[in-house]
């Protein structure tokens, strides 16, 4: 479990998020939603220790995040940024980088590391691409390679910053199905999503943010019924029951 208490954070001494109190339970998917500039990514970066908070305390498995060494923390928490440089590297070597927190001084992967990397590649159906350069892959395939790297990192908590942005609808849904599989493996997923419908359909919890603060943190149903989404985004919405019994959400402007 990861817990944030009284967190204020931002960039260049400018506060972006303030008084954040939230905890993410193990084996759940939480989507952080909100308007542009409300502090979603700042919250994600702060919670994953990429950004040092101005004040407050973050703890992972009941231990302050500052008490972990870099590599110890990387074995507990992983973060997949939205904007990444695309290095000139093969799929296999990139996924192997996921084992970095576990490598010794010689940085030589052991048999156990190779087995975990092979499993991650298999899990993401990337076996036919292992020797391909990731620069030759499509955006959707590339995202799967990065998720395979996160799988190889084998952390309990995974932060994903807009994992479906720039992908076509088929790849968006494929990535969200993968996120569900990660949850079934016992991982805690916290992601920023812009697509409200997908966020409500695929998540166990929704964290709706407004002006650097949490407006509501509840189940998708609870957040939807609160009317906060309509109020904050200034949109209308409708809940639809689909054939398999699940609920889908439609948002529109009148």
């Amino acid at each position, binding site marked *: 479990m990861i817990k944030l208490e009284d967190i204020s954070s931002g960039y260049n001494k400018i506060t972006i998020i303030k008084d954040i109190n939230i905890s993410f339970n193990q084996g759940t998917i939480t989507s952080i939603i909100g308007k542009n500039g409300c502090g979603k990514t700042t919250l994600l*970066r702060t919670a*994953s220790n*990429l950004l040092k908070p101005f004040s407050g305390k973050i703890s992972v498995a009941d231990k302050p995040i500052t008490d972990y*060494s*870099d*590599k*110890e*923390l*990387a*074995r507990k*928490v*992983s*973060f*997949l*940024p939205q904007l*990444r*440089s695309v*290095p*000139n*590297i*093969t799929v296999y*070597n*990139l996924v192997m*980088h*996921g084992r*970095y*927190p576990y*490598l010794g001084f010689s*940085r030589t992967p052991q048999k156990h590391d190779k087995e975990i990397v092979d499993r991650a590649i298999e899990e993401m159906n990337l076996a036919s691409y292992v*020797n391909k*350069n990731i*620069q030759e892959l499509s955006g959707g395939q590339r995202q799967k390679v990065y998720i395979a790297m996160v799988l190889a*990192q084998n952390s309990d908590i995974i932060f994903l910053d807009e994992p479906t942005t720039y992908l076509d609808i088929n790849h968006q849904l494929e990535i969200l199905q993968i996120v569900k599989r990660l949850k079934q493996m016992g991982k805690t997923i916290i992601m920023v999503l812009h697509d409200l419908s997908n966020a409500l359909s695929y998540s166990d919890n929704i964290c709706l943010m407004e002006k650097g603060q949490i407006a509501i943190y509840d189940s998708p149903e609870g957040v939807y019924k609160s009317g906060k989404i309509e109020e904050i985004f200034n949109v209308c919405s409708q809940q639809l029951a689909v054939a398999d019994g699940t609920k889908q959400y439609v948002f529109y402007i009148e």
Partner: protein
Amino acid sequence: MNLLQKFCTRINLTKSSKGYNVSVIALLIILLLIGIFLSISIGSSKISLADIVSAIRLKDQGSNNYRIISFVRIPRTIAAVLVGCALAVSGAILQSVLNNSLASPNVIGVNSGAGLFFILTAAFFPVNIYLSTIAAFIGAILAVFLVYFIARKTGASRMAIVLSGVAVSSFIGAITDTVLTLKPDTMIARAAFLIGGFSGITMDKLSFAGVFILIALIASLVLSYDMNVLALGDESAKSLGLNISRIRFSSLILAAILAGSAISFAGHIGFVGLIVPHVARFIVGHDNRLVIPVSALMGSIFTLLCDLLARVLFAPYEIPVGIIMSFLGGPFFIYLLVKGRRGQLYD
């Protein structure tokens, strides 16, 4: 390069396979050994392999050939090997860590720092030739510290390092020009430093810098995997548990030690640090665990070849090695740019 790849395809060695990489390194080691032999044997007086062997075994120490080999050719050959590998590895590190294809040692202020301290010793301690070597080394390291210190104030991002390198180089250049104006006698020392070369190199001068180069080379190989992780981008690398500011700083210091050591006894020798890493990546890909040793070998071979040509082309006159490097390296680099398919050379 196409020939090499065609040959490898014919013998079933695919690029990036272990066999391919081992073959490339083995081939480069053979070429380096041939280069070393040619560098020692060819010159104004030709020396046979038997003479070289007997000189190494310290036989016939009174002969002319022994003196030429021991005091001229071997120091010069070692100097070319050390300078070539040091500058090439320095460039490879900088291009990777700063993610900038145009990065070379002068980007982080190495050349300007070394140049200033070289001129200062020429101006105030003109009789002590060893002091200028040490001063140039110290100048190079201090300039890089200054660049990093300024860049750190703004987060030590790649762009901050490059921009503060430009600013520091420009500032140090102004100080150098002021010293040159006030002490016109140092113009000759300045010209010698800018042209660079290996004539008059002694083992005494080499031993100081050589130790630093060897230690920095080993440290570069140790850090090469971390440099690969850093190439994923700051956020991804940090999320994997890499201490990015420590690796970036260590890499910059290693690059500065390598280039500063080379410049301290050979003067300003450009181009190797820029083009050799590109050629290395063209052959073995972007994995720094391979790029660094391949750059070291290729840098040494290229510098040996250029120095050999500089000595024999217009013998008994000698052309500065930097000129030969630009004559050979410039067109070759253009050839690679034109021939290299998208992504292979400059991504």
